[in-house]
């Protein structure tokens, strides 16, 4: 009973390690068969928008944060100023 208090405060880092690995590996195992899905997605989004608007090839920015329950995908598209550019990109 007294021994309990000897457990270091920040003891259970092993549990943290296990949880981090479980989340990571769950994603890696499913993503493993389709590598580079994000670069392809980025290319496709870019191509789709370029069909209708004039945007630069660096205009699409994709970010992702993988989580335990859900992951979030953030897609930012820079549209040129319609006045400056004269076409497309009405907001």
């Amino acid at each position, binding site marked *: 009973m007294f021994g309990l208090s*000897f457990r*270091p*405060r*920040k003891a259970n*880092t*092993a549990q*943290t*390690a296990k949880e*981090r690995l479980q*989340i*990571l590996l769950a994603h*890696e195992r499913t*993503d*493993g068969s389709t*590598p*580079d899905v*994000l*670069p392809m997605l*980025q*290319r496709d989004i870019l191509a789709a928008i370029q069909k209708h608007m004039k945007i630069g090839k*660096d205009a699409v*920015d*994709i*970010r*992702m*944060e*993988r*989580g335990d329950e859900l992951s979030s995908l953030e897609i930012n598209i820079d549209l040129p100023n319609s006045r400056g550019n004269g076409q497309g990109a009405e907001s």
Partner: protein
Amino acid sequence: MSKIIVVTSGKGGVGKTTSAAAISAGLAKRGHKTVVIDFDVGLRNLDLIMGCERRVVFDFINVIQGDAKLKQALIKDRRLDTLSILPTSQTRDKDALTQEGVEKVLNELREEFDYIVCDSPAGIERGAQLAMYFADEAVVVTNPEVSSVRDSDRVLGLLNSKTHRAETPDSEPIKAHALLTRYDTQRIAKGEMMTVEDVLEILAIPLLGVIPESQAVLRASNLGTPVTLDDEGSRAASAYDEAVARLVGEQVEMRIGGEERQGFFQRLFKRTA
């Protein structure tokens, strides 16, 4: 003028990634803009040690192949705004690395960062060769153990022959430093392990630091925190901090100590602190 530092060893499991993470965080802590790059294509682990594994979207290979901009692949550390991580691909193989591609990315990084730390894969194949090729300095991570010392010697040979500096006439050779890791003073005292002096006598390069075998290292990797950002009071963390100070040119006295022995009261004190 930015500096490219390769963390290499030949042998696996000696502490390259741990050291690359600890050193780059140590440099960033001092205010130097630092990026650490994983060269271990297909077996990346730097992201895990740095704790940014969930944020990897694009990687070094995507940048080399033109699928992403460097800015998109760089992950900004959430603890230090002077620190960035460039993860590598987990799904490609080493052939995806090209010398031209690596050079292009490094040149772009030079414009933004003071220190570029290259975390080499084990072995002496393509990934390891490209990690060292453009280096200005090398940190050769060695354990006081026969196979590790032999492999370090082999790597020193490559640093002096198969690198840009070695192949460019009139340029200074790569400055190589030895970093002894997993140093166990008890076993060394018993004569079971080679001493620092033994290893340095064989390798004949200057010593950057001696990192004691420490629980702090495992704890830090469990948490995904470079040891120099985690338990700063640990002997391993202070040994890395001192090594970083030497790397940037400070004179710091070499202390060679074992794992911390915390007394009951020290531990109690730390818990309440």
